């Protein structure tokens, strides 16, 4: 029997931006990343869901993307010229829903509909009925191909919108990821940025033990990508490297390998495979709240 805490109404600080004024200064984006973690903790704890470690490793990346990188309009989610974002690691859906809600795409009250009976936010990303989601994911290894197609489509249309895809390290085991990785440079898709959340832990163990990816950056580079590596929890670094204007414009697709920590933000979850699965309840939940709020 799950003893989940009641979902508390979570009200982020207004200094972290609003729908009309996305946070763009570093402190506000950092605040947004904390809000994403805090909201995701509520969502996951209340519903007995999993993947909290995978969500926490992406919080700064999502906050950075929705903090001035993605050219989107929360009040007009289907705006044709919006940048497209592919959350290829669809199992970190709670983080994306939190980020979208905090950005103003839908009310935060709706986050209570995550993974519960009669809810509207499933545990893997769906575009159906959720403003701001362009594509559905959940099966690993699909997202980069979708992103390649979208980027090629944008270029064919002569459009300006850019495509971003957030991949997990585990899904780089999938051959289909590398099929897409081969094609993007071959088509010189400068309108595409892939970000890999390299938290070093996949479903059944550490990446370097299960199926080592190293030399990871060299793999992408040898496929023809422009590659950089950043601290995936450092907003300033992330923003600098994810922003396409910081790269040669005709240099083909970019891959930003974000070195992250699974479970980042809650000490007992950090770097521990258990939190790919376990849902924080009871004392664990209380301690997580304390740590996240102290950090904030």
């Amino acid at each position, binding site marked *: 029997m799950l003893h989940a805490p009641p979902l508390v109404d979570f009200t982020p600080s207004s200094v972290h931006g609003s729908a009309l004024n996305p946070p763009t200064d570093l402190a506000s984006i950092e605040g947004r990343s904390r809000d994403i973690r805090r909201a995701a903790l509520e969502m996951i704890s209340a519903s007995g869901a999993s993947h909290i470690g995978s969500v926490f490793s992406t919080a700064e990346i999502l906050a950075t993307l929705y903090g001035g990188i993605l050219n989107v309009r929360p009040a007009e989610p289907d705006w044709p010229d919006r940048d497209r974002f592919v959350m290829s690691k669809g199992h970190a859906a709670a983080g994306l829903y939190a980020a979208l809600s905090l950005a103003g795409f839908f009310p935060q009250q709706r986050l209570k509909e995550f993974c519960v009976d009669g809810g509207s936010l499933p545990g893997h990303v769906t*575009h*159906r009925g959720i403003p701001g989601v*362009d*594509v*559905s*994911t*959940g*099966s690993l*290894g*699909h997202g*980069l*191909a*979708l*992103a*390649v*197609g*979208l*980027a*090629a*489509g*944008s270029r*064919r*249309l002569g*459009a300006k919108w850019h495509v971003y895809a957030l991949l997990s390290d585990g899904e780089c085991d999938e*051959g*289909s990821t590398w*099929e*897409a990785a*081969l*094609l993007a440079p*071959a088509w010189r898709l400068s309108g595409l940025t892939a970000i890999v959340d390299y938290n070093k832990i996949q479903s059944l163990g550490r990446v370097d033990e299960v199926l080592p990816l190293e030399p990871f950056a060299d793999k992408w580079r040898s496929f023809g990508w422009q590659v950089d590596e950043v601290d995936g929890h450092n907003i300033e670094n992330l923003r600098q490297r994810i922003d396409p204007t910081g790269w040669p414009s005709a240099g083909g697709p970019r891959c930003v390998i974000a070195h992250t920590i699974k479970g980042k933000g809650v000490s007992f979850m950090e770097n521990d495979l258990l939190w790919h699965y376990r849902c924080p309840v009871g004392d664990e939940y209380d301690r997580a709240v304390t740590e996240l709020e102290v950090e904030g």
Partner: protein
Amino acid sequence: MRTAFVEGLSELAAENPHILLVTGDLGFGVLADFRERFPDQFLNVGVAEQNLAGVAAGLALSGHIVFTYSIGNFPTLRCLEQIRNDICYHRANVNVVSVGGGLAYGSLGMSHHATEDMAILRVLPEMMVVAPGDPVETRKLLPQIVAHDGPAYLRLGRAGESHIVSSEATVKLGKPTTVRSGSDLLLLTTGGMLPVAVGVADQLDREGVSVHVASVHTLSPLDESVIRSMLEAFPAVITCEEHSIHGGLGGCIAEVIAESGLNPTFRRLGLRGRFAEGVGSPEYLRAHNDIGHEALLDLARSLHAQATAFEVKAMRS
């Protein structure tokens, strides 16, 4: 059918620059003219069918009408999950084209026989499954597939099939085409079995049996009301397909019959839960696997006899 497809698509692509033909590195010779005429509407993703389907979905979601092209099971089974999640769930305007449906690549062997594809694809929500019976149907259905906003699977044969359907005939997506009218026995066919069915119907006609032949080119969504009214009109019905009897046309019709309250004398001609055996041309393999002219003729004769005997018995009682 292959030639009819490429010619038809060329006409449509000339009118609509958003139509894209994306190949998985196949179509040597066949696609050369299209590639030359429409270099901006032709893409080759290489030998990577999962990527083919995923990239096609992305292209479609950015506003294009995409045709993916490959042969046999490569653009379908190899990337089934991409078709399900990326194409169907997004209702993306991607039309998956497979050349070599059934046993069309006869001598190339099992890997190149597509004999379960329709069963597998027709259960996918949103997916339209279309297997034209000849080049005429292919040509007439293609603009309708382009106009259809959503995923479709177009299962073609190879090149050089004879024209069976009249160029004057009305061929409508979703509606079986009546190819030959008759009253004693109903032959429902899909894909490249159409000429076999017509050949058998011609022969039976000479024996005094009137056979109705319809090409059920659209397996999904199946127009059940049309199928029911056809079933009501005939005492005996045979489905024929270069495909497993499970889940394809035979499966579709069996499902309709089961829920219809009708009880026609019914048989399915197709591969009975096994791979095609032997080595040879499509014609050879059909005969060798008991799904060719002779097998259908024997089945039709015996079924007609059964249905007639049943009717006589019913009249006497």
